Structure formats: structure tokens, C-alpha cells
């Protein structure tokens, strides 16, 4: 006998102005299963899920819960139907405690009895094996703790259908494992779980079935057991892509930048970079690997003049091979010296671009000082923006459309496009493909290789070791703020790099005993 689906979506369409986010999508989830919703960025996964959670209202189509047609007008309607969604950006109130967040908006006696509430929640967390401090304020919690609060919040509200939007994007591998085991527990107790992701190995290890979206359209659903990374990728991108990343031989190899014994201290006075030394050479890509928060961000920011350096020196070699000291210089001073240094930060819309401005305006962030009249020159940046949009195939309604409304991949193309337009001699990129789909990622790899071929020294902080090993000529491994090794990208193995990534604390300890 065929089981009845817990959720069924039929012919759902959603438009935002001219952009069609979802077109005629069908989807079904059964009780006691984990369904992955797989798709590239901007393929409409989140939009589709938001229609289940009542954030968006579909323009067309029907939704059935347990075989009954329903209308979900608001998140409240979704709760009543037992649908709980955990968004990428957590929906938690920072100044309230975990327990207060969990009971937010729930009916009950007028006065609050926090002791009883806490006891109730504790009973629930024990059942699924969660570990949280309910009286802690959200702003004191780590990302993974916040995620736990979100999940408990949904369960406490009696959610039978749990939707998770890229839950592992912010977690360490250990936290991811923990999350997955909790999700499996929940599936085994009969709940339906929808997980939005574009990480193929997670799809394969966690889910029972996979539904694939491409450019807002529903492509199909397959049993995970019958799928492979290759077959899923094909469904996702529509054409066969080679997973190989090209790696041209390094050219020139003269020293571009020398970093000697650089240390940095964070706001709390803790050392986040310890005696970091390396050289960056022209015509090569130097990868920087490490567990998140090992000092990658601080290293790039120190070079860019955004982070004060407590010890050591940063020396840049200019066109005449003259040494230029960048150590104590601010970003503006570095630029005034004529150093061609470009930086694509991790936080694209926070540090890199202004979300509310169009592409032209964002180009001007780099060029507003040029020109002689008091009026700004909008023509040059506009043509530059147009060129980037055309060459990098940025999908946007117009050059003046706010970049904040573009999908992640397009935002990154605009940012990288702008940074390489000044033909940098040193290009630093942090997590250049984070949140990007496969096609966009390859465009970015290609752009980095282009820069390498034209003689730039590229510094690339990455998280995916497979990519770093395929793309980079050398890989510097950071661990707890220390350089634990610099390996050859062509010969190193994943295990070797992985081991180096965990040795920082030991390196620290060794030094202290000396």
C-alpha cells in the first residue's frame, strides 16, 4: 500500500517582480524520512521552503498536508499544521534566554512560570539528546548552540515537519555529525525532515530521497541509495561538468610579498595570529587552509591594513622590485603608495559591497577618488559594471539594481570582477566560493587562474580541501593562529593537510616549554 505523503506541493509558482523564483514545482515528503532539496544557489530552494513556512505566499499551486489541501498564509498557520522551519539566519531574539525564545508566541496562561517552562523543555531535550543551557541568553551562544535552540523551539511547538535551510554551512565537522545524529533520531520517531543543501556528500550520507531544483524548476526526485555525486551534479546543473579544476604551471615565481613573524591580538587580548611567516610569489596560487577561525581572516586583514599587527613585518615588492613596508599602513595608505593589492573579503555584503547600491555604485567604491572635478565620474564605473555583468554572466535586471537582491553567486562575481579589474599584483580572496553553486564556483576558479597566468600572486583562503588541493600550487596551513606547514598542492594529500590543521595547539605548547 502506498503511504500518504506528509506534505505534497503541486504546481507551485512564486515570482518576485520579473524574477520567477519557483515555476511549477512538485514536491512530496513522507513521514519518517529525510528529504534533501538540492539545487544550485538561486535555484529557488529557500523560496520554496519559505512558502511552506508561511513567509511567502505562492502565486499559483496547491499544498496538501496529510492529503488535505491547506492554505498557509502566515508562520502561525504553518505551526498549526506542524511545520517548523530553521532559517539560515536564525530567528532568535538575542537579548532573551533560550527558554524565552522557545516559548515565544505560544498560547498559555497570561503570567509566565519560567521554572515550569524550563522543566517542560528539559524533558523534551533529554528525549532527543540535545545539550543546551536554557537560561543562557542567545547573544552569549555559539552558532551551533543557537541552531540547537532553533530545533528545540520547533519540536517544542510540536513540529512534525522540520525544514532546515543549509544547516551545516556554519558548523564544524563535529557539530555537523552531532546534528545529523539528532536528525536521524527525529526521523526514526516518525518526523519528516526537509534539508536544503548543496553539499553532495551530506545529501548522500543523510537523506533518504533527493529532490532537485534547477533555476526555479523541479527536475526530479531520486532515491539516495541509487544516486551518486556525479548523477546528482548532472541533475543540478543540467549538463555534465568535469569535476577537475585546471591548474596551470606557475609562471615567473619572483617574490611578491614577504610576511615575517606577524602576530595579531584580538579585542579580548587573545593572540589570534602567532609568528606567521611566508612568501607569496608571482604567478602562483597560495592556498590557506585551516579549521574555521584559525586566524585566516585576521591574516588577510592584517595584510590589507585592516588589522593592527603587534609584531613582525609585511613587505611588498613593487614593479621595480623595491621593498615596500606595509606593516603599519592603513588601507588608504597602501593604496596611496601605489601598491596593487586587491582583497575579496569573506563577508561580501558587509565588507565588500554595499547591498543597497547598484553595480555601478559598487564599482565607484574603488574609484570615487579619481577624477579632478568635484563631481563624481559615473560613466567609467558604469561601463566597467556593464563589462563585468556581460563577461562574468551576472544575472541582474539592470546595472542599477541593488546588489543585495542578487543571489550569492552573482554578488561574488560582481565583487571579484571589481577587484580584478584593477589588475592586482597581489590578490587575496577569502572563501571565494562559499555559498556558490558549482557553475559559479568554476567561474571563480577560472578567474583566479586567469590572474595567476597574468602574473599576479593569489592568496586563497578556502574550506574545501579537495578544491584547495586541486587549485593551489602551495598550501599554507593555519592552526590556532600558527603556520603548521606549507605543502606542495600537487603532491600533498588530504590526510596530510588535515593533520596539520589540528597541530596548532601542540605547536604553541612546544614553544612554551622551550
Amino acid at each position: 500500500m502506498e503511504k500518504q505523503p506528509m506534505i505534497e506541493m503541486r504546481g507551485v509558482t512564486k515570482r518576485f517582480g520579473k524574477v520567477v523564483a519557483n515555476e511549477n514545482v512538485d514536491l512530496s515528503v513522507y513521514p519518517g524520512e529525510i528529504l534533501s532539496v538540492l539545487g544550485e544557489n538561486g535555484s529557488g530552494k529557500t523560496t520554496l521552503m519559505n512558502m511552506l513556512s508561511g513567509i511567502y505566499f505562492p502565486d499559483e499551486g496547491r499544498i496538501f498536508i496529510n492529503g488535505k489541501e491547506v492554505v498557509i498564509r502566515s508562520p502561525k498557520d504553518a505551526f498549526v499544521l506542524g511545520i517548523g522551519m530553521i532559517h539560515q539566519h536564525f530567528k532568535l531574539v538575542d537579548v532573551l534566554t533560550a527558554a524565552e525564545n522557545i516559548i515565544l508566541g505560544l498560547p498559555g496562561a497570561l503570567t509566565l512560570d519560567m521554572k515550569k517552562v524550563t522543566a517542560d523543555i528539559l524533558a523534551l531535550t533529554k528525549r532527543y539528546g540535545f545539550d543546551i543551557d536554557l537560561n543562557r541568553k542567545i547573544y552569549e551562544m555559539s552558532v551551533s548552540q543557537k541552531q540547537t535552540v532553533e530545533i528545540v523551539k520547533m519540536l517544542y511547538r510540536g513540529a512534525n515537519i522540520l525544514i532546515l535551510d543549509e544547516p551545516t554551512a556554519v558548523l564544524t565537522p563535529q557539530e555537523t555529525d552531532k546534528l545529523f545524529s539528532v536528525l536521524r533520531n527525529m526521523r526514526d520517531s516518525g518526523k519528516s525532515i526537509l534539508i536544503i543543501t548543496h553539499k553532495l556528500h551530506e545529501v548522500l550520507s543523510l537523506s533518504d530521497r533527493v529532490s532537485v531544483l534547477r533555476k526555479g524548476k523541479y527536475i526530479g526526485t531520486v532515491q539516495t541509495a541509487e544516486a551518486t555525486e556525479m548523477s546528482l551534479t548532472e541533475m543540478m546543473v543540467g549538463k555534465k561538468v568535469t569535476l577537475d579544476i585546471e591548474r596551470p604551471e606557475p609562471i615567473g615565481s619572483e617574490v611578491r610579498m614577504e610576511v615575517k613573524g606577524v602576530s595579531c591580538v584580538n579585542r579580548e587580548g587573545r593572540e589570534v595570529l602567532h609568528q606567521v611567516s611566508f612568501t607569496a610569489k608571482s604567478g602562483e596560487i597560495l592556498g590557506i587552509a585551516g579549521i574555521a577561525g584559525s586566524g585566516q581572516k585576521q591574516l588577510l586583514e592584517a595584510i590589507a591594513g585592516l588589522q593592527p599587527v603587534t609584531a613582525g613585518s609585511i613587505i611588498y615588492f613593487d614593479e621595480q622590485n623595491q621593498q615596500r613596508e606595509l606593516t603599519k599602513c592603513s588601507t588608504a595608505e597602501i593604496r596611496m603608495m601605489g601598491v596593487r593589492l586587491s582583497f575579496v573579503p569573506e563577508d561580501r555584503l558587509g565588507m565588500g559591497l554595499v547591498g543597497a547600491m547598484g553595480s555601478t555604485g559598487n564599482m565607484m567604491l574603488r574609484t570615487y577618488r579619481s577624477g579632478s572635478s568635484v563631481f563624481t565620474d559615473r560613466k567609467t564605473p558604469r561601463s566597467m559594471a556593464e563589462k563585468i555583468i556581460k563577461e562574468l554572466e551576472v544575472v541582474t535586471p539592470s546595472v542599477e539594481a541593488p546588489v543585495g537582491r542578487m543571489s550569492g553567486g552573482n554578488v561574488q562575481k560582481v565583487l571579484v570582477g571589481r577587484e580584478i579589474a584593477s589588475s592586482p599584483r597581489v590578490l587575496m580572496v577569502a572563501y571565494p566560493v562559499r555559498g556558490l553553486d558549482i557553475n559559479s564556483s568554476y567561474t571563480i576558479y577560472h578567474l583566479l587562474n586567469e590572474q595567476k597566468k597574468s602574473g599576479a600572486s593569489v592568496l586563497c583562503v578556502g574550506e574545501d580541501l579537495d578544491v584547495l588541493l586541486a587549485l593551489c600550487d602551495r598550501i599554507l596551513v593555519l592552526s590556532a593562529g600558527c603556520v603548521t606547514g606549507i605543502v606542495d598542492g600537487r603532491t600533498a594529500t588530504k590526510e596530510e593537510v588535515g593533520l596539520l590543521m589540528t597541530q596548532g595547539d601542540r605547536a604553541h605548547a612546544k614553544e612554551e616549554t622551550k
Partner: protein
Amino acid sequence: MSTLLIFLQKTITQGIVLLYGANGEIITEKSGNLNLGVPGMMYMGGVAGLAGAFLYENSTANPIPWVGVLIAILAALLCSAFGGLIYSFLTITLRANQNVTGLALTTFGVGFGNFFGGSLSKLAGGVGQISTAATSGGFRTTIPFLRDIPVVGDLFFSYGFLTYFALIITLLLSWFLFKTRLGLNLRAVGENAATADAAGINVTRYKYLATCIGGAICGLGGLYFVMDYSSGTWMNDSFGDRGWLAIALVIFARWRPTQAIWGSFLFGGLYILYLYIPGLTRDMQEVFKALPYFVTIFVLIMTSLRKRREDQPPASLGLAYFREDRN
């Protein structure tokens, strides 16, 4: 009575107006609405209460005080809540800029008060001729016997009932915000409307209700000023800085009603201190009048330096909420 006792009495009298305004603004701001229309809503409440009492007393030969009081209160509540409703419609439904709307509401409310207050004066025969003796007497009735205790009676029991009601409202508001579910929901709306929405809270309803009730509470401040403090008559522009002081008091109290109680007395005292320091020149008086603002700036600096999250304004204060916004 000693000068000190009189000063303390006046301090409390001054403070009550501010306390009403601050409470009204606290509940409003806790919903994420920064309503700078407090002065305007005070004028609206004050003049509506006065008009109610005046029309009632003129329509009957022997006005009964408590009927006049009820009419005045009702008129004040409705009119100032209407001020809050105008603000709510503009900022919540039409998503107009909150600062601009609030300032416009103040301009409107002050003009509204002066226009109708002036008209009432004209009906009564001239400026300061409005007489609502019975109703005003009702507002100013003190508790018998207790009033007659020396010193203690002067200090604690020489006021009309709106004074004690202000304290009750403050305690009720504090209990509501921090001890009830609805209060928790309201705070969530002001902190992070998207989160509250996703938790199934009707953000629009909470914002409307909080802003209108907040407006009504501000209006009680205006009513107290007109019927009790000014003994039931009208002078154009007589409220002075009190509306703005109430908004400053919200910051001073760090959005906690109970803190606003002593804050209101501090502000009230500082506001009239210049009258009790002998030998002040005209320009020094102005400096003294500015003391409450200096104190507020000082508190702002201190809370900014300490950066305690609990002392910060509601996180989404001043921001309109639209569910389908993509960012």
C-alpha cells in the same frame, strides 16, 4: 512648610507628567516604534480632557465631579490613542519613516491642542477664563485624614489620584513586560520582528496596540498637567519641554518602567531646581533647565561604554517590518 518640603512636592508633581509620558513611550518603543509624537499626544490628551470637562460643566447646572472626571479621562484616552493610531497607520501599514512621522505628530498635536484650547478659551470669554472647577476639584481631591498628617501627609498624600495611578500603571507595565507571555511577545516584536513573526506572533497587531495604548498613557500625562497641575484651565504652549523630557527619560530608565519612577522624580526635580536656588541669573537658569538633558547624555555615554546588551534600545527600534522583504 519648609522650602525643601515644597520643592519635594513640586518635584513629584513635575515628575508625574514625565512618568506618564515615559511609560507610554516605553511600551511603544518595546514594540519597535520610536514615536517622537509624545509631546503632541500629550497636548491632544490634555485638550480633549479639558474640552470634555468644559462642555459637560457648561451643559449642566450642578456638575457632579466624578462624572466630569470620567468624561475627561475618557476623552483624553480616546484622543491621544487616536494620535497613536495616526502614527501606527503611517509607520506600520504605510511603512513611513518613524522619525519624520513622530515629529509631524508632535507638530500636529501641539497645533491641535493650541487650536482647540484657544477656541475653548474664546468660548469661555478669554485667555485663562476656562473654568472646570468641579471636575478639576475631582482630579485634585486628596485622601482624607492621611492628608492631615504633618510632613508625611504633605509629602505623600497631598496629590490627586492621577499621581498614584501613574505609579500603579508603571508597576503594571513592568509586570506586563517582564512577567507575562504577552509582554514577552511584545518585547520580541521590538527586538526582532521577523523572529516574532516566524514564531507566530501577529506583529502588526502588537505594534498597533502597543502604540495606541502608549499614546493613551501619554495622553494621561497631558490630562494630569491640564486638570491637576494647571487646575483645569488652558494656556497655549504651556507644556514646555515636558514631552521631550519624557522621551529622554525612556533612555535614562533604559526602557525599564520601574527605573522611570525615580528617574521621573530626578528629572522633575532638576527641571524646577532653578526656581529654588537663590540668586541665579537668567542665563544660569537656562543652564539649570538643561540639566535633565545633560543627565540623559551622560547615561547614553555610560550605557554605550558598558555595552550591556540588556541596556540597549530594542534592536529593531525605528525599523518598519515587511514580511516579504528579501533581506
